[in-house]
């Protein structure tokens, strides 16, 4: 007894997860479309590598599907739980990758085609990604969750399993480090007039 796709758009994640556990295929589709981009985006920003980020995103969602039958509605936020899984998977991967040159990890694929604007945009994203890659793991995670994913400090604290004050400290230090790393590239990135 699948519900029509459009009627599920407004259903909260945890209710959809219960529907999924009860065999609703449409709930699986909506959750996949809703959660995969968020999970992948975070993993990509933290790991700086699309293939690695895809593996992490897939693994995180597999864990979500497996936990679905035991999910208790209202107890935890699905996205918070999922971000925590992603954060831990990323930390594991970064720990294993330690020793690999940072620039090898952060080097993005260079398309080298398209108009100048696209190239400038690409250069900006490459610079941000490279600067993020130089931050310590926890700082990077906190900065990405706060400033790119747009989460609040209390939720980030829950995800990283630290205090709100610790989150504030991590994001402040991370932002300062990013600003310092990118300061020398302002002109090259088209921000000379700022």
């Amino acid at each position: 007894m699948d519900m029509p796709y459009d009627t599920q758009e407004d259903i909260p994640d945890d209710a959809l997860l219960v529907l999924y556990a009860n065999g609703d295929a449409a709930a699986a589709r909506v959750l996949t479309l809703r959660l995969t981009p968020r999970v992948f985006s975070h993993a990509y920003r933290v790991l700086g590598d699309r293939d690695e980020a895809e593996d992490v995103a897939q693994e995180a969602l597999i864990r979500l599907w497996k936990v679905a039958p035991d999910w208790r509605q209202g107890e935890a936020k699905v996205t918070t739980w999922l971000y925590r899984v992603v954060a831990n998977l990323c930390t594991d991967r970064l720990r294993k990758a330690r020793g690999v040159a940072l620039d090898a990890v952060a080097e993005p694929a260079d398309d080298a085609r398209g108009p100048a604007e696209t190239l400038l945009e690409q250069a900006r994203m490459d610079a941000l990604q490279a600067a993020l890659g130089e931050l310590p793991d926890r700082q990077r995670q906190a900065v990405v969750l706060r400033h790119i994913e747009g989460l609040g400090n209390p939720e980030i604290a829950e995800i990283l399993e630290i205090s709100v004050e610790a989150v504030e400290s991590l994001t402040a230090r991370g932002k300062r480090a990013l600003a310092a790393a990118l300061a020398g590239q302002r002109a090259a990135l088209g921000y000379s007039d700022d």
Partner: protein
Amino acid sequence: MLDALFDAAREDVAATPSASLMARVLEDASALQKIAEPGAVQGRRDGFWRALLRNLGGWPSVGGLATAAVAGLWIGIAGSTSQIGSTLGAQVLSGGQDAVLSEFDNSYAFLLD
């Protein structure tokens, strides 16, 4: 500059998942959903009667079916015994079919006039 970069990062297509990842995630969801279905988790295979019971809608439905069956049986028995002593058989044999109809429904009584 940093805030502008963060804004641009939110729109960055490089951070959007590929179609193949979406397909893989959906495949996983579907495969694990089958495993998570009740019964499959416990590794228990339903017997014929248990499967029949489930397909009929569980005990409440079966209770209704049983009531209907008993009521049908009673109507059958009561109907047949009440006709044994009547003249219905004779009427049928003598060709009085209109009278037979009137036995069941008074609206056919006008046919007897």
